[in-house]
């Protein structure tokens, strides 16, 4: 126990002097790094813009309130498109992620090389935002819903795949042994002992990803990949902030609703 002596009396200390100075050094370096980074940003910032930021903010909010409700009707079809992008994208992504997770899990992978490949695909998919996939796909296959769906699918592969392969690695070994001892083949073992164990986690994660995808698909239109984002982009480009506010309210409502549905379903399956 670290102590220090004051007037020949030992006094309790939480840390030794060395630990204490290491912690102070850590904080010091952290703060220095923060200041250094802030300096880089400050050098690239035109601070004059900030002097009237509160005026800009006030006028922006002033133009957004009240929202322009007259366009609500024309937003329903784009909203339906947005839901479709999220749902179909989730389904496509899940279809690809499901076998990939079995290749990536340590206990079910047929070969270490395949495992490395599957992990690589999962990390790449997770690192790159759906919006970037969408930009790429729009330049490749043209603007529209399909680009959005594939973008959402590509982003979902990593998320669903990662959580699923972690779930596969954490299964109980006893059912696997039991099914193996009946003389079942590899695929039968997976189908009857692994899949039933991971099904609740799989369903829960997929619904969770669907909920995130709804949020992400609202912005895909900004780069031309369909959905309500197209209308938002048009309204922003026209500086029609009243219409932008309507889109925001609709997005907010949809996201809250999907979050509620997702929470209900996850509660039911897990």
């Amino acid at each position, binding site marked *: 126990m670290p102590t220090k002596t004051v007037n020949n009396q030992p006094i309790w200390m939480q840390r030794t002097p060395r630990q204490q100075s290491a912690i102070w050094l850590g904080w010091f370096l952290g703060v220095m790094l923060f200041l250094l980074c802030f300096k880089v940003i400050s050098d690239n910032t035109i601070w004059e813009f900030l002097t009237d930021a509160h005026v800009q903010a006030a006028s922006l909010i002033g133009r957004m309130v009240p929202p322009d409700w007259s366009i609500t009707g024309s937003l329903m079809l784009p909203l339906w498109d947005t839901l479709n992008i999220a749902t179909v994208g989730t389904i496509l992504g899940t279809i690809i992620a499901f076998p990939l997770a079995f290749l990536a899990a340590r206990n079910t992978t047929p070969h270490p090389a395949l495992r490395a490949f599957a992990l690589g695909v999962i990390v790449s998919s997770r690192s790159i935002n759906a*919006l970037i996939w969408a930009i790429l796909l729009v330049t490749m296959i043209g603007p529209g819903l399909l680009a959005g769906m594939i973008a959402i699918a590509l982003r979902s592969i990593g998320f669903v795949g990662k959580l699923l392969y972690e779930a596969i690695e954490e299964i109980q070994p006893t059912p696997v042994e039991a099914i193996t001892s009946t003389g079942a083949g590899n695929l039968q073992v997976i189908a009857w002992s692994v899949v039933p164990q991971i*099904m609740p986690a799989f369903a829960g994660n997929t619904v969770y990803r669907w909920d995130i995808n709804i949020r992400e698909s609202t912005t895909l239109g900004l780069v031309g990949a369909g959905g309500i984002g197209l209308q938002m982009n048009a309204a922003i480009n026209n500086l029609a902030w009243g219409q932008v506010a309507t889109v925001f309210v609709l997005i907010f409502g949809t996201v809250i609703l999907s979050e509620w549905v997702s929470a209900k379903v996850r509660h039911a399956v897990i």
Partner: protein
Amino acid sequence: MSTLASQIDPVRIAAAKKGSWRPLPLISSRKLRWALNLAALTYIVLVYFSVDINWARVAQGFDRGLNFVGSFFTPDFVTRGGEIAVGLRESLTMTFVATVIGIVLAIPVGLGAARNIAPRPVYFFCRTLIALSRTFQEIIIAILFVAMFGFGPLAGVFTLAFATIGFMAKLLAEDIEDAQNEPMEAIRATGASWLQWINYAVQPQVMPRLIGLSLYRLDINFRESAVIGIVGAGGIGATLNTSISRYDYDTSAAVLLIIIAIVLMSEYLSGYVRKWTA
């Protein structure tokens, strides 16, 4: 119905005696099962007719897609090396500054959003803030902040910090709500002030998770910083967007590979730090 009785279905037993066995259906009610199947089928038909795909354009894009995949094997880090370096430096600094600011601000919001320690009005205020920050994608917030603060990384810092507040505060609040009550009572019984109470009863219980989540958020913020550049909020996103719209896939592949490498690195690092703090 007891579990045993529900398992013994005479029809299933008779079938099993003839040697045919099928696993129990996932949804036990037959009506619900058919209704769900029907709903799914209707949905697929509806989607099929509402999505209008230009297959000729897709076929055309297939070549470009192959080109893009091919460019991952010939990434070009050099030709636009200057732009990539500037964008990357901006992204990394933005990420770090925004994460620090976001977490510092998320701590009071998180405390306010924990039902067991915050008074009702504060609780509702903080929860509303969290819901707002979580609903809107970073890119939407970035558009608003660019309109307010002008182009540049400062708008990006504000965007990422705002998004960090919602994420961290929500998880911190849930963690505080799950914290054990006994240490809290014990510290309060010593006559500690509110700050001392938070510092010695709540903080030690939530700290390991807070550190892990902070590192995770650092990782997310870096990924997001690659996106918000598209609308002018600084970072590597602008470089990436320009290279894609010029069909300069070799440079895009280089940027994407750098992003993937940094995310991978931070994932290893955060696993290491979490083991070390836990």
